[in-house]
């Protein structure tokens, strides 16, 4: 008999049948009685004082039910951290980017709402604006927030070991700079919110989110209503990819409109609004100086990054730190200095994105290739020599409890036949490798842990209650699979209530890759708690000790004598007849250093465990057109343990598409003075089916000592390392190291031309 009945097996996800039939309801699909349409008026200027807003014309239009401006808000500035409180959801003083929310209306239909927006008269006084990190840091640059002199929003400084001494002792030192413009989430589902208030002051709200509790508390703060009256409801979510974790202005505005109208209101963003007015990924310049010994082992590294943060802080301290932290996890580096700056500009707001910092990640890896070339060491060997190992501490003092970095490098190398290909491929045909590592959560204060409840019905079926949210990656199924496995049930015996802040306990949210590790562990503990109670009754019925019992196929049986068994339903009924309802409670708090802080104290256990991934890709480049054709990809990640392998493969493949195929070949925003010129699906090029290469998935399992069944996280190391592998392969194909990403045909042709004229 297999050790597990469900864990480790390919399972049909519980949520996907409803998605195949059109039955699944997303926020924009929701219809409530008497519901109104909400629309938002946005700033046409990148930087301007708001002198006056006249809403009288809009208010008089028949069919308009409410108009809201800053006057309807408490005026507080909100921020993720106490030191980043800089954003009013309807600004009182000035606008800071083209597209910022200024006012909003609710009306009986869309046409009326749009007409009403045209009747709102806003008087602005235009201010000088800045659209790049360089311009923003000039001595006379306009100041975007008074509280941030020089427009420096965040400075993360990490200095470990003795970097200067490390360089002195190095055999070879080089410094290179890399850059990449903004990229975007382009979730399939454009942002949408539905809100309704009742006359008791209770708010019900639905929106795509990566953490319902992370939405509820800020909503309570800015609306000045108690947390128990904010009820973020569960709804299907069309992707997040690191976005949708924070409260959005649309959430607040929709709630304000619903309260003022005393009717439900729905706001559905257009694709353009989703691109410009939710979040984008940061643009970045990274200067990386690395010193190595004769064998290519990194002795010292000094990195300076400047990230364009746009107009507000958002999750800035995290976004500045994570690119570095991923790399300090992936590779050993004893002496390291990191100066990460997030700079305000008059551009849309930037948040955390699945492929954190292309310029940084690709820069570190590409530089390893350059160093390897100088030393005569091949890139795969360079990575093996620097790979993080189990039992290490990272420079910022995180213990690495499990680590398959080297194994992922070796396995992708073997399967791709790296050694037979490296240096032996014909011109314009290349192969590249990238490695990276991702956290499974990070310190989040009182929000860092997850709690779960389980209750049994008299037939032996259960309901699991958890705060974990599913953005599309399969978290709902993961919870059900764990609870069913632990209690000897099938997925069909389990109902799930989750991602609803009224019913479910607190949870950190899905954006930090912690849901399997933290939320999954909580559900497992709740199931074990319920199991203990079941076994007490079963043991007395079977006249054995609890310790000899196990549960499977809805029965509780004696391990060495399975014929001695009792059905789950009988045990539950026995308990009920004696006045006890069977339930379970579990709570999991990851062992992280609570004193660790992004800016003040970037040291201590960051995450209880880490995933490690390697991607290799093989490409050809057409020297006439600069077009890249990706022949094949090999993706490997140490996931701890694969709970549902087919779901993990899906994460690998999706990560490779977004990080590599899109992130390194086609995806970037283009600008004209703070205006995004390609906010639409037609102009921003995400990968299509025809673009994608064959992907070979290699799942590496290191059985993490504390993950549920040894599991960690699925796929984010792939998304990041894919960008690096694509980058290395293209540079290898054309014989030029390029330093401005993504690698579009125009840049590739220019690089080939420059190389040929040398």
């Amino acid at each position: 008999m297999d050790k597990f009945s469900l864990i480790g097996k390919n399972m049909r996800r519980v949520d996907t049948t409803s998605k195949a039939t059109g039955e699944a309801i997303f926020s924009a699909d929701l219809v409530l009685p008497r519901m109104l349409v909400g629309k938002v008026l946005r700033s046409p200027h990148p930087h301007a004082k708001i002198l006056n807003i006249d809403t009288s014309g809009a208010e008089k239009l028949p069919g308009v039910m409410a108009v809201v401006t800053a006057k309807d808000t408490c005026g507080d500035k909100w921020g993720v951290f106490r030191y980043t409180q800089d954003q009013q959801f309807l600004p009182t003083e000035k606008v800071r980017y083209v597209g910022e929310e200024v006012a909003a209306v609710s009306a009986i239909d869309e046409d009326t709402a749009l007409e009403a927006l045209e009747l709102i008269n806003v008087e602005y006084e235009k201010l000088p604006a800045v659209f790049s990190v360089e311009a923003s840091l000039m001595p006379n640059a306009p100041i975007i927030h008074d509280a941030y002199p020089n427009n420096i929003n965040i400075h993360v400084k990490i200095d470990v070991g003795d970097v200067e001494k490390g360089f002195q002792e190095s055999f070879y030192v080089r410094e290179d700079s890399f850059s990449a413009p903004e990229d975007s989430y382009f979730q399939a589902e454009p942002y949408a919110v539905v809100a309704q208030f009742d006359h008791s002051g209770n708010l019900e709200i639905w929106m795509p989110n990566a953490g319902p509790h992370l939405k509820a508390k800020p909503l309570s703060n800015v609306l000045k209503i108690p947390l128990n009256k904010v009820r973020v409801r569960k709804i299907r979510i069309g992707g997040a990819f690191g976005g949708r974790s924070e409260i959005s202005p649309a959430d607040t505005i929709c709630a304000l409109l619903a309260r003022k109208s005393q009717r439900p209101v729905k706001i559905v963003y257009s694709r353009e609004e989703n691109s410009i007015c939710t979040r984008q990924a940061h643009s970045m310049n990274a200067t990386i100086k690395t010193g190595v010994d004769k064998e290519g082992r990194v002795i010292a590294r000094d990195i300076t990054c400047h990230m364009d943060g746009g107009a507000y802080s958002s999750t800035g301290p995290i976004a500045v730190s994570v690119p570095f932290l991923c790399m300090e996890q992936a590779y050993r580096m004893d002496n390291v200095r990191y100066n990460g700056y997030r700079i305000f500009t008059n551009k849309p707001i930037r948040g955390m994105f699945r492929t954190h910092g292309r310029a940084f990640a690709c820069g570190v890896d590409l530089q390893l290739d350059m160093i390897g070339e100088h030393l005569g060491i091949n890139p795969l060997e360079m990575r093996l020599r620097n790979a993080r190992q189990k039992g290490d501490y990272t420079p910022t003092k995180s213990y690495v409890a499990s680590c398959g970095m080297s194994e992922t490098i070796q396995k992708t190398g073997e399967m791709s036949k790296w050694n037979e290909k490296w240096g032996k491929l014909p011109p314009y045909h290349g192969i590249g490798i990238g490695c990276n590592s991702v956290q499974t959560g990070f310190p989040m204060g009182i929000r860092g842990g997850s709690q779960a409840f389980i209750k049994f019905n008299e037939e032996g079926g259960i309901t699991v209650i958890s705060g974990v949210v599913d953005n599309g990656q399969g978290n709902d199924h993961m919870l059900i699979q764990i609870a069913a496995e632990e209690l000897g049930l099938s997925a069909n015996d389990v109902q799930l209530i989750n991602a609803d802040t009224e019913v479910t306990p607190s949870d950190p949210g899905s954006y930090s890759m912690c849901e399997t590790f933290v939320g999954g562990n909580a559900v497992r503990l709740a199931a074990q708690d319920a199991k203990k109670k079941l076994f007490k009754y079963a043991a007395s019925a079977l006249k054995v000790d609890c310790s000899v019992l196990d549960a499977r196929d809805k029965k509780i049986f004696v391990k060495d004598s399975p014929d001695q068994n009792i059905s789950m339903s009988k045990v539950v009924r026995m308990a009920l007849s004696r006045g006890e309802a069977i339930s379970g409670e579990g709570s999991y708090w990851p062992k992280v250093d609570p004193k660790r802080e992004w800016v003040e104290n970037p040291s201590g256990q960051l995450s209880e465990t880490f995933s490690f991934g390697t991607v290799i890709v093989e490409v050809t480049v057409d020297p006439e057109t600069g077009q890249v054709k990706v022949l094949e990809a090999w993706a490997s990640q140490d996931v701890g343990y694969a709970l549902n392998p087919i779901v993990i493969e899906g994460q690998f493949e999706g990560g490779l598409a977004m990080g590599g195929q899109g992130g390194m070949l086609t995806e970037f925003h283009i600008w004209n003075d703070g205006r995004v010129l390609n906010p639409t699906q037609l102009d921003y090029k995400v990968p299509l089916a025809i673009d994608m290469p064959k992907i070979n998935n290699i799942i590496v399992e290191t059985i993490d000592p504390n993950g549920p069944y040894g599991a960690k996280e699925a796929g984010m190391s792939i998304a990041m390392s894919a960008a690096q592998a694509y980058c290395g392969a293209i540079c290898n194909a054309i014989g030029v190291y390029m330093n401005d990403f993504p690698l579009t045909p125009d840049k590739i042709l220019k690089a080939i031309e420059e190389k040929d004229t040398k």
Partner: protein
Amino acid sequence: MEKTTKRIVKLTVNKEIHEVAINVNRTLLEVLREELALTGAKESCGQGVCGSCTVLLDGLPVRSCLLLAVEAEGRHITTIEGLSCGEKLHPLQDAFVEHHAIQCGFCSPGMILTASAFLEKNPSPTEDEIRRALSGNICRCTGYAKIIGAVKALVDSGR
């Protein structure tokens, strides 16, 4: 803004006839979603690029965000809700679930309808033909591998 006049339009959707009073400037997508509560068709790009709003018009895939509802009068419209038959899933829906071709699921209705029209026309396609046929439908989650795999598995099974 001048209000357009409403017109009674007779639409045949999933073999049922609906008479709806609509402004003539309403797209088929809006009418399906707002008047007939058929929300399986999604708006993602709003400009006919992504394929999330795909429905079948006389068996052929169209972008319902680019088509006025009045233009669909007298034609047979199939939405994702009409693909399954009672409790029984269409073989493609079943294949998409079985082979994990669905993650967030926002693109799935359009993807499945496009695939079903394609297989009607070409019941035994090569993998490359499947890729081409589905390249007008954008998926941000899956990297397409499992979607292509699901269609291929169905073709190979001969169902």
